[in-house]
C-alpha cells in the first residue's frame, strides 16, 4: 500500500496525548487517576479533571483489589472500593487495562445501582462487608 501522505504535514493524523503516561508501578496509590465503573451520577458526571485518589486505607499506601480509597471527584471527597487495577497480581487472577473503582458510602453500600464492567471473582470472599456491591455486579471474570 503506497504511502499517499508524502508531502503532507502529518501531525494531524498522528495525535499525541498532552500528558505523559507511565506504566503501572504499584497498583493504586495517592494521586492515581481512576475510572469509576458504576452508573452513579457522581461517577459519570463530566468534569474537567479525572477522579483522583487522595488517600488509601491500608497499612502501606498501596491499594489492591478490595481496598478502600478516598477519591476527589467534582470537588468533593468520596469513598470508593478498588475492583481492578493495571498492575499484575496473583497468578490466576485477572488484570485489567484500567484502574477501576466503585463509589461507596460510609457503611459500604454502593452509590450506583449497576456495575457493567467485569469484576474479579476473588472479590466474593468479602461477602459480608460488600454483599450489596457484589449483588449489583453484572459480570464476573
Amino acid at each position: 500500500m503506497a504511502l499517499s501522505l508524502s508531502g503532507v504535514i502529518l501531525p494531524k493524523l498522528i495525535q499525541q496525548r498532552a500528558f505523559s503516561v507511565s506504566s503501572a508501578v504499584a497498583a493504586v496509590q495517592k494521586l492515581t487517576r481512576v475510572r469509576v465503573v458504576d452508573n452513579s451520577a457522581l461517577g459519570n458526571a463530566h468534569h474537567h479533571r479525572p477522579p483522583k485518589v487522595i488517600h488509601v486505607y491500608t497499612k502501606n499506601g498501596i491499594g489492591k483489589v478490595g481496598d478502600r480509597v478516598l477519591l476527589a471527584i467534582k470537588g468533593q471527597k468520596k469513598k470508593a472500593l478498588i475492583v481492578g487495577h493495571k498492575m499484575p497480581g496473583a497468578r490466576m487472577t485477572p488484570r485489567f487495562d484500567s484502574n477501576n473503582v466503585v463509589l461507596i458510602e460510609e457503611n459500604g453500600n454502593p452509590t450506583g445501582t449497576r456495575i457493567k464492567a467485569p469484576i474479579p471473582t476473588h472479590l466474593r470472599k468479602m461477602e459480608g462487608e460488600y454483599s450489596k456491591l457484589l449483588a449489583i455486579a453484572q459480570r464476573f471474570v
Partner: protein
Amino acid sequence: MFLVHTPLSNMAACTSRVREMMGLLRILRHFPQNERLLSTSILRHAAASDGPPKFTPPTKPVIIDKTQKEASLRRFLSPEFIPPRQRTNPVKFSVERKDMIQRRKVLNIPEFYVGSILAVAMTDPHVNGNLNRFVGICIQRSGKGLGATFILRNVVDGQGVEICYELYNPRMRKIEVLKLEKRLDDNLMYLRDALPEYSSFNFDMQPVHYEITGDVPVSPLKVKMKPKPWSKRWERPKFNIKGIRFDLCLTLEMMEHAQKWAEPWRPYDMLKEYDTFSLEEQIFKEVQGKSQNVNSP
C-alpha cells in the same frame, strides 16, 4: 497394469501364450513401478508344463502405501520442557519433567502457540458451578518447568482483561484450543496498545477445525494501533515486531530515529547462543515414551 490370466483350455495355445507372457515379464521387470502388482503365477505355469498344470492361486499383491508418512505428523514439544541454560543441576530438570509428564496424563494440555485462541476452565470456589471459564488470545508463553504460564487476553464489556494462567496448576480443569494459529511475532504484548477489535473474542466461539499434519497456519495480520504514547516503544528494533502497521502511525523519520537503538552485533553474540536441537530430540523421545507407557498394558 494388470496381467490377465489366460484360460487353460488348449495346451499348445497355453504354452505359446506362456512364452509370450515370459517375454512380457522380462520386459516388465525393467519397469519397477509395477512391481507391487506383478504376479509370478505365470512362472509356475511354465514350470509345470507336462500334464495338466495344478491350479495355484495367484499371490496376493503387496500394496505399500507411501502417501501417509510418519514424518508428516506434526512433532510438537511444548517450550516449557526445554530447560534454560543455567548452572543448576540437570537432575532438577529431569525430576520436574517427570512431574510434568505425570500431570499431562491427567490433564490434556494441547498444542498451542502465541496467537491461538484458547478457552480455559479452572476451579473457582467463588463461582456457582465451581468452574470459571475464560476465552482469550494467547499473547505470551513464559516460564520453564512446572511454573510455565501463558497469558490470555480478551475485551469483556469494553474492558480489556488479561489472565495469566499456570499450565500445571491443579486448579486447571480444561484447556481447549478454539483456533490454532501462529502470528508474525511470538510475543503479542503490543495488543494492549492496539485497537480493541484485535483483542475481542466471543465467549461462545465454536472451535475451528485444525489439521494435525503439516505446518501451523501463520496469520499475516498486521494490527492498527491506538495513538502514541504506547506502554512500550514497540517501533524499536529491540522488540523486533512484524505484526504492527507502522506505516499508519509513524513517519519515516520516527522509524529511522528508532533504528538508533538497533544493536546489529546481537545476532553474532556467541555467548547468547543456545543450541537446543539435540536436547529437544532427547526430551521429545522421553515425553513420547512416557506417554505411550500409559497405553501399553
